[in-house]
Each structure stands twice: as C-alpha cells, then as structure tokens.
C-alpha cells in the first residue's frame, strides 16, 4: 500500500518508527495531486514550496527531540471558506478572487499548533451555497469514483481530495449537510460537530446559526483525531462553548452496550433511491448483529418541513452576512464609476454568482417588511417544533440512523437548472443543523454502478464521543472504509 492510501494515524506511526519522513509524505501527496488533479480538480491552490517547507520543519523538529503535535507531518487540505493568513482565500467566488486574509481561522491555528502540513485550499460551492460544487466560480470538482458525476457539496473539494488520496484528511464546513453529503457521495467519513463545539472564528459566514467546521477522513479514528485538534473554546467566537474536549481517540474502540438505534420511518419513504435503501437496511442488520436494538421513531415535522425552514433561515442569515461584501474594505469593487449606492449594487451584481444572488434575494424577501412574519418568524417557530421532536426522539434512542443522501452521486449538470430539486437532496441532513446536534456520515457500501453510499448517524448535542464509538462499531465489522477509487 503506497503512502497516499494510508490514514493520518498510519502516517503518524510511520514517522514515529522512522519508516517515513514528513518530507517523503508531502512529496508523495504532491505527486498524487500532480497526477490526479487534471481529473479531480479538488484544489484551488497548492503551493508546493510552502508544503515542502512545512514538512521539512516538522522533520527538523523531530530531529531536535522537541515534542511534536498530534498531526505532525500529516498533510491536511482546507476548504477555501476558512481564512489562511497570507494565503489567498476565495470562497470559490469572484468576489474574493484576490483576497488574502490577514489572519488564520481558529481551526487553522489549531492545525498549525499541532504541526500539520497545510497542503492546499479546496474548491467548494460559492460561499458554501450548493450541494454539488457546481456553483464554484472557478472549476468543476468531480467525484473520484466516477468523474462524470458530482462530488457532492458544498465541501466537494475537501471530500474529493481525500477520496482521491490527494490528502489523508481535510476540513470542510456543514451548514445543511455540506460535510456529510459529499462524504457519503465520495465514500469517506465526514463529521458535522455539535453547534458550538468548534469555533467559527475565521470561517467566512454563510448562516451563522447553522455553520460548523468539521473533518473529512478515510476512517472514524482519523475523524476523531481531527476533532480532538479543532474542537474547544475560543473567546473570539461567542457561540463556541466552554466545555472540555474528550479524548475521542481513546474511547473509540469501546463499543456501546445495549445500543438503541432510532430509525425514523420517514427517512425510508418515497424519495429514497431503492438501491440506497437496501444498502442502508443491510447496515442496520449489521448493527443488530452487533447487539443493537432497533427503535422505530417518527420525525414527521422535521422530515416534511426541514428543507422549507432551512431555505428561509439560511437565506435570511446569508442575506445579512453577505451584506459585508460591498466593495469598500476588501474584495471586488466594480470598475464602473458610479455613486456610492450604485457602486454597491454593481459590485455585488458582478461579484456574486447566480445561486448566491438567488439566496440573497430569497433571504432579503423573507426578512422584508410585511413578509417577515409569514416567512422568517414562521420558520423559526417550526424550527422549535423540529427541535422538540428530536429531543423527544433522543429520549427513546442513543443515535438516529438512516441514509445521508437520498441518492448516490448524480451526473454533472443534472440539477443545475432546478434549484429546488438540488435543495431536496439535503433532505436527511438539514434538521441536524437546524437543531444544532452532532452528525456524521460513514461509508456503508456501493451501488451496482460502483458509487459509494453513506450511513448517517445523528447524535444528541455534545455527544460526539459516543457517536464515534457507535460509528466505530460498524466500521470495525466492515471494510468499506478501506476502499479507494482508481483515479
């Protein structure tokens, strides 16, 4: 098995035992990027010299006998929505084509503090708005399992680069499923942490009450390791919660006894691809074989209305957050000479892509005088009902299981002209963000056409440690996480 197919945990062991250096690892991944990027197009930026320099610094630190960080010499790819000091950060938007942040996001600081090697910035749907990475202003990332298909989104680049073995782990962000859905469609692990578990400082905001940063990895162990590094309190994000971060990797291999898995009947209704349904059913049987008990549950309001609530709440928050892009302090400014207001309007008309404009329009309308009660306030009330429904469900079960995505990866271009159809592809993932709980997707099989399928686990807030143990139970009994595509 070549270096690029290894997990981060294996790469750490190889360095500790002297079988590989950080520089050799960096070179192996840079070579993979060179060979595979023409097909995968996951990265917007890879600075080879900077990557080698970071790796050599880790090797020098090891030689000096200094204590090394938890991710020493592990290449990590970072979604281009996270600020990296001195390194261009575009959000895949023309609006930020030349933007160079003067500071690092909290999670990027954490990666650096643990001696990770930042290997590059990854492609995404513009401002994280989308489910296929087709809304990038720059390039089309493909699915490494079938390059005629989408990788999922919005963190499509961060998912595809791990699936394609161009990086062992990466960071994405999840506002309505943007980590879990691409993880599922690319056959890897993706985690959406509890709201408040990870600081959003330096994450360019889309919808502030929903956004969270989380990891992509080949397996649960690596995902848990990444969470140990990025989770924790940060005074610069007042919604980051001051609660100790468990050592997720220590408890990981202890199975949960008398596990009760909640199965929402609505997750298996029409709309679910029958082949995906069969694969999910097989994984539930696997859990039963491991001693888990099924608990039939029902989430009628969330299943029926979450997408509608989301497309009001998320667009309302985005219309407010994206007001900052006015061409005055940073980012694109129109070249057309005009007065102040017209300069704003021209700048934003030129700088934002179609989907971003659509969402700003929808959110502005939902918040506008005369319509806010009908749309925004109504959506917030239904959001409360969805939270109540999840609270009640977790009284009966330890984890909620179901499909991550209703279908496997669809073809490039299939849904670009129908925004509503695209929105409905997030139907199983969206409630998790609205109610602020933790969720993850783990690989659980392949369709006959060799496309990966993901199993979604939803867990109560701040229950990531148990969620990882439950995920690891399934993983240790199966080998889906060891599969790699031929790119």
């Amino acid at each position, binding site marked *: 098995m070549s270096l690029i197919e290894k997990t981060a945990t294996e790469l750490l062991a190889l360095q500790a035992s002297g079988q590989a250096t950080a520089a050799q690892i960096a070179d192996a991944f840079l070579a993979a990027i060179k060979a595979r990027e023409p097909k995968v197009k996951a990265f917007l930026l890879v600075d080879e010299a900077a990557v080698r320099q970071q790796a050599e610094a880790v090797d020098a630190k090891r030689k000096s006998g200094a204590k090394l960080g938890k991710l020493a010499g592990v290449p990590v790819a970072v979604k281009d929505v996270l600020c990296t000091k001195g390194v261009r950060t575009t959000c895949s938007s023309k609006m930020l084509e030349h933007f160079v942040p003067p500071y690092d996001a909290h999670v990027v600081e954490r990666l650096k503090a643990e001696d990770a090697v930042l290997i590059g910035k990854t492609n995404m749907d513009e401002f994280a708005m989308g489910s296929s990475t087709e809304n990038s202003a720059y390039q089309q990332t493909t699915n490494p399992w079938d390059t005629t298909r989408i990788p999922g989104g919005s963190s499509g680049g961060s998912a595809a680069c791990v699936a394609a073995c161009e990086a062992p782990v990466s960071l994405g962000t999840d506002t309505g499923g943007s980590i879990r859905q691409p993880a599922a469609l690319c056959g890897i692990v993706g985690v959406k942490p509890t709201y408040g578990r990870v600081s959003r400082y330096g994450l360019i905001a889309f919808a502030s009450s929903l956004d969270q940063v989380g990891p992509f990895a080949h397996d649960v162990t690596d995902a848990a390791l990444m969470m140990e590094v990025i989770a924790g309190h940060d005074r610069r994000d007042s919604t980051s919660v001051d609660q100790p971060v468990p050592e997720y990797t220590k408890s990981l291999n202890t199975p949960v006894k008398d596990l009760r898995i909640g199965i929402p009947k609505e997750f298996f209704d029409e709309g679910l691809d029958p082949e995906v349904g069969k694969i999910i059913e097989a994984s539930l049987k696997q859990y039963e074989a491991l001693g888990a008990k099924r608990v039939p549950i029902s989430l009628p309001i969330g299943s029926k209305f979450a997408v509608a*609530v989301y497309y009001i709440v998320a667009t309302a928050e985005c219309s407010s957050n994206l007001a900052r892009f006015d061409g005055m302090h940073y980012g694109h400014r129109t070249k057309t000479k005009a007065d102040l207001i017209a*300069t704003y309007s021209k700048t934003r008309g030129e700088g934002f892509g179609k989907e971003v404009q659509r969402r700003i329009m929808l959110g502005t309308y939902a918040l506008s005088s005369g319509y806010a009660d009908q749309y925004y306030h109504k959506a917030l009330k239904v959001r409360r009902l969805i939270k109540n429904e999840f609270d009640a469900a977790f009284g009966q079960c330890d984890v909620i299981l179901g499909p991550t995505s209703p279908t496997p990866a669809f073809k490039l271009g299939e849904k670009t002209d129908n925004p509503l159809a695209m929105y409905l592809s997030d139907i199983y993932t969206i409630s998790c963000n609205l109610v602020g*709980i933790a969720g993850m997707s783990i690989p659980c099989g392949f369709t006959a056409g060799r496309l990966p399928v993901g199993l979604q686990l939803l867990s109560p807030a701040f229950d990531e440690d148990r969620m990882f143990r439950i995920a690891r139970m399934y993983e240790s009994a199966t080998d889906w996480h060891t599969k790699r595509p031929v790119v």
Partner: protein
Amino acid sequence: MSLTLDQVKKVAALARLELPDADLAKMADQLNAILGYVDQLASVNTDGVEPLAHPLPVQNVFREDVPVPSLPVDAALQNAPVRLADFFGVPAVFDTDEPVSH
C-alpha cells in the same frame, strides 16, 4: 402568492444587487418555485410556539474587557480596493466636485 417582476426589482434594490433586466424573469420564476414549496409551512400549527433563532441555550456571553492587540493598520488595509493614506478610499457619499475614487 407569487412575486411579480416589480417586486423582484424592489427586493434586488433592497439587497443592493444590480441584476440584468434579461435575468429578472428567470429569477422571478425560480424564487416563485422555491416560495411555492416554502409556503407549505403555513399548514403547520405554531400557535403559542416560541421561535428558535439559535440552537444553543445561550443568551449573552460576557468576558472581561481587557485590551488585546488589534490588526496592524497595514494588515487591515492590505485588501482595500483603494487605499488613501491610512484609510479605505470610497466613492463620495455627498455631492462634491472631488474626483470619485475607484
């Protein structure tokens, strides 16, 4: 209820978005399709339900008011579309004979 072209124009003005006239009809159709779907929220009984704006049970978060270093001026201005001395250069807000900076 569906949005008319005039309403779409009004929302675009509120959002400070200049949209080409040729795009307005398509934008209206797409917004109407989404709003048509969203309108099903009206069927949910939410009498007496408290709105949930935020998933965490936190209200205000306080910390000691201790000064910490801010971004240096040059770093703060490094992405400015137009820099004038230590300021962001912007088009004139009031009528003036001064040239508008771009």
